[in-house]
């Protein structure tokens, strides 16, 4: 069974003229809840069917790379502020923002994280020297993942 938008419109029109305030419909494929809300109605839907996946070509699933998240004694971790694709340079072919050994301050941009086609800069967050770069150019990073480590400068 499948309900189209027209069907839902018709059902809501009927419900609206009735004294009912809620309809719950459940089939093998979906669950639908229509509720009176103010002068209108809301719809809450959940698909219950499972995708019918055709055989994919045999690609061995790459072992999930361990995303660094732990802190290391003596060093400050620079973490990704959000999930996205990490880029080391402002654009392809340009030199990277920072390399190992670079001196940075709190606001130094150390990379770009691209999320849903929008670029967000990631900054060092502390003053010091970059000692380790963990995230590769073009890698998909999770929020909170350690991108680089720096050695804080004294005072």
């Amino acid at each position, binding site marked *: *069974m*499948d*309900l*189209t938008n*027209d*069907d839902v419109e*018709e*059902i809501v029109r*009927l*419900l609206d*003229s*009735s*004294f*009912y*305030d*809620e*309809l*719950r*419909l*459940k*089939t*093998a494929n979906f669950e639908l809840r229509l*509720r*009176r809300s103010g002068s209108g109605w809301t719809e809450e839907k959940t698909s219950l069917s499972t995708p019918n996946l055709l055989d994919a070509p045999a690609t061995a699933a790459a072992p999930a790379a361990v995303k660094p998240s732990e802190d290391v004694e003596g060093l400050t971790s620079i973490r990704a502020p959000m999930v996205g694709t990490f880029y080391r340079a402002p654009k392809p072919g340009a030199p990277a923002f920072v390399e190992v050994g670079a001196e940075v301050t709190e606001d130094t941009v150390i990379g770009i994280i691209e999320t849903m086609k929008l670029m967000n800069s990631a900054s060092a967050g502390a003053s010091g020297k970059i000692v380790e770069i963990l995230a590769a150019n073009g890698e998909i990073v999770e929020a909170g993942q350690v991108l680089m480590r720096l050695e804080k400068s004294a005072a």
Partner: protein
Amino acid sequence: MTAIKLIDVSLRDGNQSIWGATGLNTPQCLQIAPLLNRAGFAAIDFIASTHMGVAVKYYREDPWERIRLMRARTPNTPLQFIGVGFRFISWETLDQEVMRIVYRCLIRNGVSRFIVLEPMHDLEAMMATAKMIREEGGEDIVGALTFTLSEAHDDAFYAHLTREMAASPNFDSVYIKDPSGLLAGDRARTLIPVVQVEQGKLKFELHSHCNIGFAPYTYAIAADLGVKYLHVAHGPLGGGTSLPSAIPTIANLRELGHSVEVDDDAVRKIDDYLTRLAKAEGLPSAGVRDFDARFFHHQVAGGVMTTTKRQLEEVKLGHLMPQVMLEVDRVRAELGYPIMVTPFPQIVCTQAMFNVIGKERYAQVPDQVIRYVLGRFGKPARPVDANVLDKILARPRADEIRKEPPPLSLKELRGKFSAGLSDEEFLLRATMPSDQIDAVYAAGPARRSYNPDARPVVKLLEALIKRADTPQFAVSKPGFSLELRSGATAAE
């Protein structure tokens, strides 16, 4: 081995036979249109003026719009219209030039195939109609050989008709139309070859109803004899008093070594859709009809028989039914063997009933019988019995009817309505009450989609709302559960 092509009649003839022509509206037709187009049918029997009237009256839908929208969705499959005589929607006969506008509009809106049906086989009338349709642009004009059992309607009779149609430039196809499903075995094996001899350039099709269970087997015979076009219906509209059901017909033909050029997946989906629609709308299924020997005798559709019996019982004369049945034979012969297709079963049965219960035969004659003998329905296969004719025409009422004015000319009829109307609107207003037409235009464009699966929910809601006494409701069965709550019981 014959390569068979199918013509689907579900939406028109199936709908008419099983659902009284009221079973389908525009969105229900449009929803299945893409699949009908994909299936590879030679044509779709889509509409008749009865259905156009139903669209207006019951559904507040513009029938012209239905044709246009259907045509847009079936660009590879011709749409068919069936007309009887010079009538359109209403019972009144129309002037020939008004009929021309009817055909012009049908063609303009997307119909390209036309059945020319004259149950009296008035050849002159058939030729005139076919010529008019051709002039207006009709592409596939099909002449009907309406089958019946009578001494007048022998193989030679049909051969003659076929010969005339083959010689005319205005016919493209001929079909044996068997409304009572009487064509069987031996007769099929003589009649079909005789038509084939005369068919010439015409396509030859068979259209037989399953009223007494013969049609599926007759189709097999026809295929063996090389008939390439067979009419079928789908789902609950196949079988019963309708045309043979598509899926078993296709299976049988293939089993017998013939090929059927259809997209089986589309056929299955069409069948399934109509089945779900019937279930959702509470419409009956055609069912199966068994052999009924009485049919050979009276050839009257079940409905008319039942009505006649009821009318007799109402005046406490039900016991006279057997006599009436015998009288039906006699009246039919005297009236020149009309083929028992609406309105003739009614005409013959009514007269037979009056003849039995009246003072004497033909003491009472209804208006329709008078019109019949005056030739208003065309010229019968045999002349009306001379004595009966004299008796009927001697009646004063016959004089009145004779003096009835001819139908209004196109100019006169147009003059009754405002000048700026489109042909389509004019034809509707000329044949139906204006308030019904106003309602159609007020209702706006028709919906274009229909979902049979949603209907049970909608109808359930409608019923519950009407009852107005059930603040909470729940129903549950495997794969489906529905709950309704109101007010305080609608918990978060």
